[in-house]
């Protein structure tokens, strides 16, 4: 049993990110992941009030190799290095590793980031390049090749299969899911760095083309370049740094690995497990959560996270979202930067940067009043989450 007072010993003390919207709109201006990583980590270290020489731990996310970054960043003689080539869904676990590094004194100040170049590299998820290249002999594991033979590819189509079942079991009208994109757009309209800053109406949603029906393009997260970074240290060291520290109150994971990706129960059991480990175990309840942050790879993830944790009864989240429940001014602010649907797809890392801004009270126009506790969770093959709280 984690003691509430001892669980808040790790702090996020610096944040940095690339200007997502500006990069996206600049013709040919998208940068390589390596360039993005260099600028965002430098910004995070400066934001923490530290010098590069203070950094003695690095967790590299997103880049295929870590040495090119370490050499260019001049972080060649640090004490702790870890690497997540596919850092997205694992971002709370990378944070857990950073916390373990500073608590075990393997490092004093860890910079961690996720950097991607999906847009400039023309990355298309699920195109299965191996298959296209190799004709009919897919260099894919058996379980994947079974789906490909039927034309099944892309994470989005797996979420579409699951949402079709959810929609059917709750008798939801076509278009009901659009309420999530509308809310996300409202938050993003207040975020100067967001890629999609135009408010979305239900009519916009209905005219958004299907990708994998029943999901429409506005149900999918963005495809972009960029980097989100933060600096982690102990709560004790954080006291000497310029910003109000943001403390890690709890961390948890709960793998739910399926051939068909989307858990049969829309991740209900996984969410209950995360709720226990993230909230119950440290004496918090849903009512203590001031804002929620979700790995919104697809709009459905927000619906299933809110229902899985018990913020809404099964089948009822979309009705409440349509009434403004999670939008600016609503009872339960969710993904206040616009998240991955509207701000940028940094795979949960941009969501964490936003959570730090909110807990510092630095979120400007979109600041959640009195924000002290934010719950983050992602639903994927490896659901994971964390609770961040405002330090004193």
């Amino acid at each position, binding site marked *: 049993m984690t003691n509430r007072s001892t669980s808040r010993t790790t702090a996020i003390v610096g944040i940095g990110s690339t200007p997502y919207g500006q990069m996206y709109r600049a013709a040919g201006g998208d940068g390589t992941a390596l360039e993005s990583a260099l600028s965002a980590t430098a910004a995070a270290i400066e934001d923490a009030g530290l010098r590069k020489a203070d950094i003695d731990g690095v967790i590299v996310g997103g880049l295929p190799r870590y040495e090119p970054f370490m050499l260019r960043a001049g972080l060649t003689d640090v004490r702790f290095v870890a690497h997540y080539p596919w850092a997205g869904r694992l971002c709370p676990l990378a944070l857990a590793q950073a916390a373990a590094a500073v608590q075990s004194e393997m490092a004093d100040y860890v910079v961690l980031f996720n950097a991607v170049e999906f847009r400039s590299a023309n990355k298309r998820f699920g195109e299965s390049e191996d298959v296209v290249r190799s004709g009919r002999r897919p260099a894919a594991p058996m379980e994947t090749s079974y789906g490909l033979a*039927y*034309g099944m590819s892309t994470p989005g189509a797996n979420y579409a299969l699951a949402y079709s079942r959810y929609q059917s079991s709750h008798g939801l009208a076509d278009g009901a899911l659009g309420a999530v994109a509308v809310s996300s757009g409202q938050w993003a309209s207040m975020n100067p760095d967001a890629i999609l800053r135009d408010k979305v109406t239900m009519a916009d949603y209905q005219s958004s083309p299907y990708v994998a029906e029943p999901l429409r393009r506005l149900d999918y997260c963005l495809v972009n370049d960029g980097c989100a970074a933060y600096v982690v240290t102990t709560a004790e060291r954080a006291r000497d740094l310029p910003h109000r520290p943001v403390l890690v109150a709890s961390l948890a994971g709960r793998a739910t690995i399926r*051939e068909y990706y989307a858990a049969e129960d829309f991740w209900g059991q996984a969410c209950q497990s995360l709720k226990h480990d993230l909230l119950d175990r440290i004496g918090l309840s849903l009512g203590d959560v001031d804002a929620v942050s979700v790995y919104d790879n697809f709009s459905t993830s927000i619906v299933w996270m809110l229902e899985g944790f018990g913020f809404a009864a099964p089948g009822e989240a979309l009705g409440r979202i349509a009434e403004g429940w999670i939008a600016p001014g609503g009872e339960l602010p969710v993904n206040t930067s616009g998240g991955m649907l509207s701000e940028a797809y940094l795979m949960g890392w941009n969501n964490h940067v936003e959570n730090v801004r909110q807990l510092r009270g630095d979120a400007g126009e979109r600041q959640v009043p009195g924000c002290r506790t934010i719950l983050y969770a992602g639903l994927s093959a490896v659901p994971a989450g964390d609770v961040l709280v405002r330090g004193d």
Partner: protein
Amino acid sequence: MINDEVRPLPVPNDEDREFWEAARGHRFVLPRCESCGHVWFPPYAACPRCLSRERTWVAASGRGTIAGVARFHRQYLPSFPPVHTVILVQLSEGPYVYANIVDSDPAEAAVGLAVSVVFEDVTPEISLPQFRLAQPS
């Protein structure tokens, strides 16, 4: 229409060769654990429940229920021009399989409908289990 010339097909290996040999004879079989009785799919070599490697092949009922319908409006794989429908079927034995609707109108596929297995002969080696909407009884 599906273009079989560039369609990615399973390459039978030690894990699933017997499955595809049965499919070639239009028999839908599933691995069952000799030790604990678990039935699973895809046919991994060992029982995912108890890790026993003693498995036998049992004839599946070939019946299932549609657990999801996705219609691709965008082309990802060269062999499947849009609109292309994929269904997720929960077999009456429990496991889930991807498939297409054949011998029925894919537009009629809907969650909760009963389906039954048919085989699509794609190459001399590979016959794919597919599903059609079950006749109302």
